[in-house]
């Protein structure tokens, strides 16, 4: 068990390094001097030249990469060109908003998705099943930007029930949480259903029924735990995905989170900010996937003993 966890963590480390390197390279091959972008068109070439040299922009790429990683490990991701603030500070400011959104969206997804999947599996091939599964499919098929704007229109403009955008109160979180959670609720419901049906075919379900357990007890005690284990993995991965920044939801609802930060950085050609934000997001995904695998090993006694 401990061995498994250590091995899982060790495999994540080279991936993290590779990912950081790829992001760094993607942003460094860019033509044009970032300093001239930062200082604007009026800056004198000599000044640009001097600043670039001072910042070490003319050093070999690998040297710059090493320096970047070294600084990053000390919490220094550089300064944003556009906002002229420490990238780490900007991330620190945005992340809580993303976390709040991720938690509310996940809660919505879990509370909707798991029961929906169970009901669908129990009422298999009945009307309820088809109905729930159709809604789940709409959930995973609808473009988030469209769903978000539809909700804005209905609840914001027409019914005037909820605020259109911003992130100051729990009321602001309702619409974004629903739209972000809907897609993941859909995939959770589908997975719960198919896993539950799969698990119900197992021999130990027959054993449970032969013991005289009632149908709900067979499902609840013997099928559910087994079928939810992979779903927990899915939920963890989705949660990590939301933590890495719900780009579209944050953009539509004007939530100042990590995703919004990334999009703004691209549109402002703010390289250090983009670099810091993407590295941050990607590391969260890697850690999330790792956590999901480790969590699964805790849940399943068969893997636990390995």
């Amino acid at each position, binding site marked *: 068990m401990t061995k498994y966890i250590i091995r899982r963590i060790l495999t994540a480390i080279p991936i993290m390094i590779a990912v950081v390197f790829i992001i760094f390279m993607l942003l460094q091959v860019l033509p044009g001097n970032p300093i001239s972008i930062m200082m604007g068109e009026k800056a004198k070439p000599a000044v640009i030249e001097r600043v670039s040299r001072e910042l070490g922009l003319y050093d070999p790429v690998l040297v710059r990469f090493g320096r970047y990683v070294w600084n990053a490990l000390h919490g220094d991701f550089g300064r944003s060109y556009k906002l002229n603030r420490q990238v780490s500070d900007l991330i620190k400011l945005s992340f809580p908003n993303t976390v709040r959104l991720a938690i509310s969206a996940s809660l919505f997804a879990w509370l909707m998705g798991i029961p929906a999947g169970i009901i669908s599996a129990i009422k298999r091939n009945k009307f309820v099943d088809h109905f729930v599964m159709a809604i789940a499919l709409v959930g995973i098929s609808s473009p988030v930007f469209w769903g978000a704007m539809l909700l804005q229109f209905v609840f914001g403009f027409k019914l005037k029930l909820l605020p259109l955008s911003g992130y100051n109160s729990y009321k602001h979180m309702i619409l974004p949480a629903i739209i972000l959670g809907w897609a993941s609720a859909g995939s959770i419901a589908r997975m719960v259903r198919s896993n539950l049906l799969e698990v119900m075919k197992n*021999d130990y379900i027959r*054993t449970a029924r032969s*013991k*005289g357990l009632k149908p709900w007890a067979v499902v609840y005690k013997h099928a559910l735990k087994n079928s939810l284990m992979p779903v927990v993995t899915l939920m963890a991965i989705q949660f990590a995905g939301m933590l890495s920044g719900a780009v579209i939801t944050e953009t539509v609802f004007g939530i100042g989170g990590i995703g919004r930060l990334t999009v703004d950085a691209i549109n402002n050609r703010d390289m250090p900010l983009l670099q810091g934000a993407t590295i941050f997001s990607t590391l969260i995904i890697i850690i999330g996937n790792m956590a999901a695998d480790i969590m699964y090993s805790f849940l399943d*006694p068969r893997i636990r*003993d390995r």
Partner: protein
Amino acid sequence: MKKVLEVKNLKTHFFTQKGVVPAVDGVDIEVGAGEVVGIVGESGCGKSVTAMSILQLLQFPGKTVDGEVLLDGEDLLLKSPEEMYKYRGNKISMIFQEPMTSLNPVYTVGKQVAEILRVHTNISKVEARKKVIQMFEKVGIPEPIKRYDAYPHQLSGGLRQRVMIAMAIICDPVLMIADEPTTALDVTIEAQILYLMKQLQKDSGTSIVMITHNLGVVAEVCDRVYVMYAGKVMETTDVFTLFENPLHPYTSGLLNSIPKLTRVDEDLYTIRGIVPNLLNLPEGCRFCPRCDRAMKICTVMEPPLYDVGDGHQVRCFLYDKELMNG
């Protein structure tokens, strides 16, 4: 002898897209108190479906369409689902073929055995644990206290089957149905498990229905045997007569296909042909296309069960006195 179980004219059909499959087609079985009754046949002959029908564990598309299943004189087929829960695991218990997959991998084996007690009796958790550990000791599980908290994958196949047996007898059922309980096990383990079942049966007086395709198992533990073929009982008699004087050509075919050390010079006998497709059964006797002694009548008429004395019954025209003598 008091009859514990009487199955009369049981018909269980599967309603598939390709048509109705009569997996069990009018089966009669009797089990006396304290008796070990074997049901033998090739795979697909309907022996497991018979067992599942007795407990009413079949799910769509399988359905029992006709017959009676009398346990101590009460017809289980007339019971409501609510009432049936009280029978399963309590009065009739079942042991399955695959000890590897028949236990839930995410719960400890002790908990799974205790569960059956908690369902059928008002026993406290502590008491249940005590009783399960006692039962583990009784079925020969070493270190029962430690094993209580083991997960199925941590036990060997033999130990798992002992757990299943503990689960099957812990509620003192009147009848235990064992569906190929030793097929998945090593030969040495098989002998131990069969011995254990025989011992437990003697101690408790529980009747056992032993479903198997292995005639060795039958010889080992059974008192009486039903030979099934394509959803019907072909022959029934006590175990000695079965081996000494098998009457049905199918039964003798089965017995002849067991390799024997005393007959090294001969080729191993096999029954020619294959089990018929239940979707389109041959007219007349179901075994007819594979039978060495088939007669004209066999292709047109289904033989009834002929009583040849001492509870020996056989479904074959060879034992129709009028037909054969006249």
